[in-house]
């Protein structure tokens, strides 16, 4: 079967997950934001007093900070923010078993392939539907190892002390306007704790989606990888297309303690009307490793710069980023690495593809503080432009205060080479197939780091997107 037909037969057309099911939210806060809404959310979640105070303080900070004027175009955002619901709760109870999940929600998950994931022996699923975890399963063996993998709400209820010790310490509410907004109205997300020395073999997966129209999603995730532990957390998301703009603003906080290794993988494929403004940050202690693997394929505008604060001697941070900007999309992504301790090392690899009127921007920071003796950092950014209307930018910030540091940054911009195309076509490939193959080769260094099913999906998506795009 010719490859083009094969792709079509896979059903990966324009937007695979463009469907809407009829879910009835149990509770709906009013549209727009106010102190009343924040109090309602907190009361509804039966939160302790300190959390309500934290939320209200964050709301004040949110109001006091101006809209960012850098990065992407946020001029329509203010109107959007007045229109969205800041909180929705689809069910009163957290579901423990699959049978209890309402049928229309199951139907949505079916289309997303969730049941397959569930059937996997090794995979755990924390599925987020609308604003909250509706379904959450944790494999027994993990419970035995003492691993905590809960919804963020349950984390607060069941482990109040552990939660309070770390919550808001990596990304304080005052960090930026959208972190403040998230801190005020957060809902949903995961709470993960990996005990000392525990190695988690299979990745922890959270699959979630936004469904109700104009629903704001303010997911909040807090992860603590205790000394010497190892784990991999995967988050992927997809949302149906609606006519009005949607908004997603998450905060991910990770603490990687001494000697621990942690990898956080996100594949973001929000529908193309979504504003996706996320703050992801990890504190990396002595001899610990933190890896961010960040894929941005969807959304109208994404502004996301996963960061590693290397605060312990010998800490290592790695950021691998893939951005795909199709027609009308702007991926403003990159990464930040702060070297604040001796002998810390970091690597950032960013690959972006801009097609049609898409725009992919790399924005990154490497900062080496005085005293971070022997720090080393290397940044590589490669951009591929498919059409003459596509655009790419590179905005790296390099600030070095330590004279024993070695820091390098390289970037290149290219298009698909005529010679490469000619060679592949002389071997019998159609132009589209050849172009898709070249693009796959371009992102391969990062795609190979993805779990198999994600890599397969990414490759299929690229084949589809490359149809009729050259020549």
């Amino acid at each position, binding site marked *: 079967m010719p490859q083009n037909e094969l792709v079509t037969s896979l059903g990966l057309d324009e937007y695979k997950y463009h469907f809407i099911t009829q879910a009835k939210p149990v509770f709906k806060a009013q549209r727009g934001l106010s102190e009343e809404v924040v109090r309602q959310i907190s009361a509804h979640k039966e939160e302790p007093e300190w959390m309500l105070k934290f939320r209200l303080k964050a709301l004040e900070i949110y109001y006091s900070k101006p809209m960012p004027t850098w990065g992407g175009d946020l001029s329509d955002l203010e109107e959007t923010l007045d229109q969205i619901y800041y909180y929705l709760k689809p069910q009163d109870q957290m579901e423990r078993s699959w049978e209890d999940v309402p049928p229309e929600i199951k139907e949505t998950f079916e289309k997303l392939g969730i049941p397959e994931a569930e059937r996997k022996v090794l995979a755990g699923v924390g599925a987020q539907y609308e604003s909250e975890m509706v379904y959450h399963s944790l494999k027994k063996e993990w419970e035995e190892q003492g691993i905590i993998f809960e919804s963020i709400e349950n984390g607060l209820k069941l482990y109040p002390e552990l939660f309070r010790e770390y919550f808001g310490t990596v990304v304080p509410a005052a960090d930026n306007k959208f972190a403040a907004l998230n801190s005020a109205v957060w809902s949903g997300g995961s709470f993960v704790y990996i005990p000392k020395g525990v190695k988690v073999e299979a990745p922890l997966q959270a699959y979630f989606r936004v469904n109700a129209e104009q629903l704001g999603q303010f997911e909040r995730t807090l992860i603590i990888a205790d000394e010497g532990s190892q784990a991999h957390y995967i988050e992927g998301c997809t949302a149906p297309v609606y006519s009005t703009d949607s908004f997603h603003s998450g905060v991910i906080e990770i603490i990687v303690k001494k000697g621990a290794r942690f990898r956080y993988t996100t594949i973001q494929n929000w529908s193309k009307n979504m504003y996706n403004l996320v703050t992801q940050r990890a504190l990396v202690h002595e001899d610990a490793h933190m890896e961010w693997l960040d894929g941005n394929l969807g959304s109208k505008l994404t502004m996301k710069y996963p960061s590693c604060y290397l605060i312990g001697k010998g800490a290592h941070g790695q950021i691998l980023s893939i951005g795909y900007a199709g027609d009308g999309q702007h991926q403003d992504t990159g990464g930040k690495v702060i070297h604040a301790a001796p002998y810390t090392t970091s690597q950032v690899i960013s690959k972006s593809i801009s097609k049609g009127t898409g725009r992919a921007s790399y924005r990154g920071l490497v900062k080496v503080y005085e005293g971070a003796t022997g720090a080393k950092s290397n940044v590589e950014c490669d951009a591929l432009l498919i059409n*003459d209307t596509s655009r790419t*930018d590179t905005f790296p*910030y*390099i600030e*070095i*205060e330590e*004279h024993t540091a070695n820091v390098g*940054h*390289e970037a290149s911009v290219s298009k698909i080479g005529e010679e490469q195309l000619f060679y592949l076509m002389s071997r019998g490939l159609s132009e589209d197939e050849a172009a898709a193959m070249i693009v796959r080769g371009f992102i391969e260094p990062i795609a190979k780091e993805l779990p198999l099913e994600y890599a397969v999906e990414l490759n299929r998506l690229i084949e589809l997107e490359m149809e009729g795009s050259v020549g």
Partner: protein
Amino acid sequence: MANTMVIEGVTAAFNRGAAEARAAGSPEWLREKRLHAWQVYEETPFPTRKVEEWRYTDVSQFSLESVRLAERAGAGVVVPAAARARLEGKKAAGRVLVVGADVAAIELDEELRAKGVILADLAAAAETHPDLVMTHLGTKALPAEAGKFAALNGALWASGIFLYVPRGVRVEEPIRVVRWIEEEGTAVFPRTLIIAEAQSHVAYVEEFASPDFEAPTLSCGVVEVFARDGADVQYVALQQWGKGVRHLSLQKTIAEKDSNLDTLVVNLGGSVARVDLGARLEGTGSRSDMLGLYFATGDQHFDHNTRQDHVVPHATSDLLYKGALYDRSKTVFRGIIRVHPKAQKTDAYQTNRNLLLSPDAEAVSLPNLEIEADDVRCSHGSTVGQLNEEELFYLMSRGLTRQAAERLVIFGFFGEVLERLPLPDVVEELKTAIAARIG
């Protein structure tokens, strides 16, 4: 006076009256231009660190509060021996000596004058060649609207230099200019306008020098360079001010079809230097080599802000800025390559390399790309690091002292910039100046 409106950057010395005074005796169009520039200056807010381009440099260093306007001395201008010495014995097709706000001396090879080359005081040229000056001075390159400091210079410039090279004329030796400040605490506003007609060739080398000063002293200059079709132009700025001088320089080069327009920006002296250099590749087949070299010691702060604007297809720009930092110095490099949608087949490169040679020095590097065409070759690279220990070890194993080895490696580091400059005499002078700084 209590109800007088306070306008930022307007002081007893710097006001509309000062712009009027500078316009005295000039043609009406120039007077209007200066007053318009002053108007723009008053209406433009003083930049702050919140503005992205000023994020790493304290713009208040260029405040007019603590300096006074350097007045013209006219015929009574005294040329210090140290200033004159800087031009002596140097091969040149033309020489200009500027002291403070006065163009003290100009000489040009007679043969070139006969061929139509003009090297003149800009104020005089505005009267003798209004057609050329009116259409190029502060128009498409750096008009008052380009910013607060472009407007300030546009209103108050003095000691302007005008260089015009007619079609097909080749000026074999460089034009050498020395700009000197003798009076402490003054502010000078140098201006340079260079027009190289089609197929012409010229190299223009200007040096900024002064004694060391205690009090803040300011130089706020504008340079505009036009290279017409097929012209070959080199512009070199050697900043070797004494201590205490704040150096602010706005430079814009416009390269037309098949022209070659190279620049070298050297920062060695002064206490704070900020150079904004914009290269506009406006003609197909044009090329700009943009070289930079800086050597910062003590508490020096150098900030380079470069721009490579590709607006047409088939143009090339290649930027290489290298710097060494000692003591508590800080340097900033911010460069942007901007490829506009129609500029296919662009080749644009940008490299910034820094040697951090002291625990207290700090280097900031921001190499940016904005690409809106797809068939381009663009790349940038940036590094911050130290001298290579292995290279030092090798040289020391051959009998060199550590100091001599370091010196050699630093020379090698800068050699990459210097070897690309087609002006052997200038290269030799620079090597001497760098050697003096390494000590």
